[in-house]
């Protein structure tokens, strides 16, 4: 597998081309409805990805509110490029050993899916030719760009897509790696390291959706496919592997099609509306009842290859259906699915005879209320089927929650870029670069080594803290005198565990975390009590004492009480103690820990249990 990454990180500055705040908001003060169409750029060639989207003829509703102004609405020209955001991009470029350009030119990248009110995204190349070493391997950095984030999609009904403007214009740094990545796990490592590097600037936005990855994957004989907008790092390996599997399956299907001499007719579409029963034909009958049409396309030599091969999940039929959907239909039926949903084999036979098909041939059915839509859908299916004879199409795909992906649009080409003439080019002067170079933040690998040394922590733990973005909190708590191992455990284990059950992202203030660790160090409750206490704090306990009390740890007793508890546990299990001797320790320790419930340290509990066991196993104890 050859893979490359595009990392997009939101910056914690103002917006890139206006002076709006960057807070996402639920307040909507009004909305406007717009249409977009593909236009030519400098050389007047309409980009095929752009033309494709425009063909969908959607209307877009944009919701404005406190985080947007006339600039986001495309009602006022962009302001000059945000200088702070450009400096951040230059700092990141320098950290990646990339070379900044002499003059940064803002470009318009045509995107007519509605996510930008203008119909283009503003983007500027800031630096090229960088590198990064991850796990001893050098990964090249092709480019560092500064671009504006898109509007946030909040809904879609019929032919209207709703976007909120709060996110539009938030500055993004885009880092593109070379295609040297060879596995999903490696992609994850590289993305994590780049994430750490971005956070080292301390001026990036945090939280869900503030960093997004695009993954480019190709296998030998396959094609570059872009999986766009993966929000979770841990899913990168899964998407990489499933894309690899998809390309492999489709290449195998290709080989079979070629061996069979399969072909896709230029024009062999037949209106089969009359063959669809008025009832009992499911979605197709419904379409016909509403006055729509159903059309069929012949695929010679495709029989049996539209469904998944044995043991595989991917199939060509799904690819064809994705293309059909892009034309605005719900999906399609194909002859490898006989019976065709609710339609029977006799129906399939009638379609076959209508199309004059042989046994090795397949057909595809598409229904739509508008005949032109059905026609366009079948044309896209025909194009996709023809590509199946060649191999894997270059395309952009949307990642799905199940680890697979869905076709979204053709891969955009260079034709979609032309200069943003409303924004003057920005010179990058050597003296300015020198000033930035002098104040560069600590590189992630340097920070890791320093912290590991300073706090005597294993480097993997430090790396884990860094990749989770917790190094800053770690250092702040350590500066307050908390123990390094205690902090590391709290941040890497207890806090994620406690937060796992909570909806959304609730952050506990540093003071609270400090108080929890201080209470443990003072012996007010044991470290085993940290997770329940954190859980109470996340669930809304007002302060630490309340959280401790709600967790049932308020009465952490004196050492004598622990001995009494141990005594009673041993006494209840007298028979087992006699039978198993020292081996009774483990099961009894479990019982005793449950009774102590985090109020006491595990070591103390074990010591008390040992004392109680010793007393019971003494052959002749003094009578009491």
């Amino acid at each position: 597998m050859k893979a490359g990454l595009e990392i997009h990180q939101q910056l914690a500055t103002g917006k890139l081309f206006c002076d709006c705040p960057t807070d996402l908001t639920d307040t909507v003060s009004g909305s406007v409805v717009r249409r977009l169409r593909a236009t030519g750029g400098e050389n007047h060639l309409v980009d095929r990805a752009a033309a494709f989207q425009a063909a969908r003829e959607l209307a877009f509703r944009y919701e404005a509110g406190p985080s947007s102004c006339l600039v986001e609405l495309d009602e006022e020209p962009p302001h000059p490029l945000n200088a702070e955001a450009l400096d951040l991009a230059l700092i990141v470029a320098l950290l990646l050993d990339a070379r900044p350009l002499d003059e940064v030119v803002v470009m318009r990248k045509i995107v007519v899916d509605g996510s930008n009110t203008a119909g283009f995204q503003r983007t500027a190349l800031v630096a090229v030719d960088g590198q990064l070493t991850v796990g001893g391997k050098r990964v090249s950095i092709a480019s560092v760009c500064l671009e504006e984030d898109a509007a946030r999609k909040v809904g879609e009904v019929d032919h209207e897509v709703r976007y909120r403007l709060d996110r539009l214009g938030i500055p993004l740094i885009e880092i593109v790696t070379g295609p040297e990545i060879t596995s999903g796990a490696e992609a994850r490592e590289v993305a994590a390291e780049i994430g750490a590097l971005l956070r080292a600037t301390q001026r990036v936005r945090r939280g869900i959706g503030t960093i997004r990855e695009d993954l480019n994957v190709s296998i030998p004989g396959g094609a570059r496919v872009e999986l766009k907008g993966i929000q979770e790092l841990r899913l990168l390996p899964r998407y990489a592997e499933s894309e690899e599997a998809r390309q492999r399956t489709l290449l195998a299907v290709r080989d079979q099609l070629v061996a069979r001499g399969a072909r896709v007719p230029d024009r062999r579409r037949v209106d089969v509306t009359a063959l669809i029963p008025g009832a009992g034909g499911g979605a197709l009958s419904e379409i016909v009842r509403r006055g729509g049409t159903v059309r069929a396309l012949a695929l010679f030599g495709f029989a049996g290859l539209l469904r998944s091969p044995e043991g595989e999940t991917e199939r060509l039929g799904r690819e064809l259906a994705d293309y059909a959907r892009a034309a605005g239909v719900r999906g399609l039926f194909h002859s490898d699915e006989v019976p065709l949903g609710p339609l029977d084999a006799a129906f399939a036979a009638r379609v076959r005879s209508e199309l004059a098909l042989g046994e090795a041939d397949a057909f595809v059915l598409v229904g739509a209320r508008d005949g032109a839509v059905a026609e366009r859908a079948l044309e896209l299916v025909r194009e996709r089927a023809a590509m199946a004879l060649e191999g894997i199409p270059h395309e952009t795909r949307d990642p799905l929650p199940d680890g697979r992906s869905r076709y979204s649009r053709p891969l955009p080409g260079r034709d979609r870029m032309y200069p943003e003439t409303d924004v003057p080019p920005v010179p990058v002067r050597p003296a300015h670069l020198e000033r930035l170079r002098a104040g560069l933040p600590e590189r992630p690998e340097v920070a890791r080594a320093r912290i590991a040394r300073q706090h005597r922590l294993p480097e993997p733990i430090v790396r884990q803290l860094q990749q989770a973005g917790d190094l800053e909190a770690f250092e702040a708590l350590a500066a307050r005198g908390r123990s390094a191992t205690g902090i590391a455990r709290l941040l890497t284990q207890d806090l994620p565990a406690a937060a796992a059950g909570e909806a959304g992202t609730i952050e506990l203030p540093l003071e609270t975390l400090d108080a929890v660790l201080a209470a443990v160090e003072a012996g007010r409750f044991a470290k085993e009590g940290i997770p329940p206490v954190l859980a109470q704090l996340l669930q809304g306990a007002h302060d630490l004492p309340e959280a401790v009390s709600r967790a049932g740890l308020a009465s952490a007793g004196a050492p004598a009480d622990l001995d009494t508890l141990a005594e009673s546990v041993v006494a209840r299990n007298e028979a087992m103690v006699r039978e198993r001797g020292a081996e009774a320790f483990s099961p009894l320790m479990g019982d005793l820990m449950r009774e102590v419930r985090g109020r006491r340290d595990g070591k103390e509990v074990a010591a008390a249990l040992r004392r109680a066991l010793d007393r019971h196993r003494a052959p002749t104890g003094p009578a009491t």
Partner: protein
Amino acid sequence: MSAPTEGDPWKRLRGLPMGQRIELTAADGRTWRGTIVPAHELSGDRVIQVKLESGYNVGVHVAPDDRLTVFDPPVPASEASGPAPAHPAPARAGVGTAPAVALLLTGGTIASRVDYRTGGVRPVEEESEILSFYPDLDRDGPVRVVPVLDRLSEDIAPEDWQLLARRIASAFEEGARGVVVAHGTDTLAYTAAALSFLLEELPGPVVLVGAQRSPDRPSSDGFTNLTAAVRVARTAAVGEVLVLMHAGLSDDRFAIHRGTRVRKMHTSRRDAFRTLNGRPVGEVVGDTVTFQAEMRAPSGRGVRLDDRLDGGAALLWFQPGLEPARAEAFVKGLRGIVLAGTGLGHVAAVHLPWIRQAISRGLVVIMTSQCLEGAVDPYVYATGRELLRAGVLYAGDMTPETAYVKLLWALARAPDPAGARALFLEDRAGEIATRREYPGAA
């Protein structure tokens, strides 16, 4: 590939055609490879712009010891920067039997494209270019494209209004049912007022239309504005000069304004155009054109054009501190002046002496208001009464711009100041209203 250039590459670079593929290597080994594209006019010294394979343009500073390699053959200039139509030009006439609409081009944003050299937008120069931007224009019937001017509207002058009026008259005489004029928005309202006075009778609508976003942008309002304007020109039973632009910020409603009552009220919004002292006369929603106001019917006798305008008038915006001597010098040699006064129509009392003198020497002095909304009234304050007594003519609720255009028109038709004053006060094209409704009382 040719051999690397010896010596300072800057000179050779400047002589290369746009679209030329080059490679530039700096002393430290840094290399840029791509095609030369026009540099932004605000680009730095010794900076060329190169379009990389990725599509990005970058600014590269050229040092005297850089090594330049020029590849051949060069990419044809048209592919890199020239105007090659994106779509084949549609057939120009003969679609069905729908009545023909003439589309007159004058330049402006609606008929502009980005100029990659200056960074600004420039008017298209060829008919095929506008058709490449608006390939669906003649979907409902023939549209005949007539290039008249290729200017941004700030460069349009009164003689251009006269030329345009003559071309509109010709278009009707050649059988057009309605005329659309694509125009820059900055001075569109002046042109609309001028055409309203010059075209005394019209057999169909003349619809001026513009765009606040150039048509090279997917979000351009030009597409929908032009489509709606063509629809009005094709269907409306109106013999007047109209302006059609977005009614709001959405692409689904368009306001139709009367040519003499409209003004650009925002620098950049799509709905910048507003009818002052009233409501738009009509609107277009979807395919439906409706008029709320009583409109002049198409003339049964064809076009009547009188294209005379007098150049001897000007518009002066009064401000506190304006020295009387400066104002007096400004009106020297003029036959008429429109004052944009304060409030109900005032200028500082220190200006009364020169105004009295100028009027007595034959200058026609018109008073309008900087408030734009509401009518001027000379009777409320003493200064107004003094100005009235001095012979200043109060222009009711006419906009200062319309009053200026009308004064050029009136001066051209009257042998003396008294005649011009009389003509000025006649309502010719709906420019003077005697009622101003409360907008809430629909």
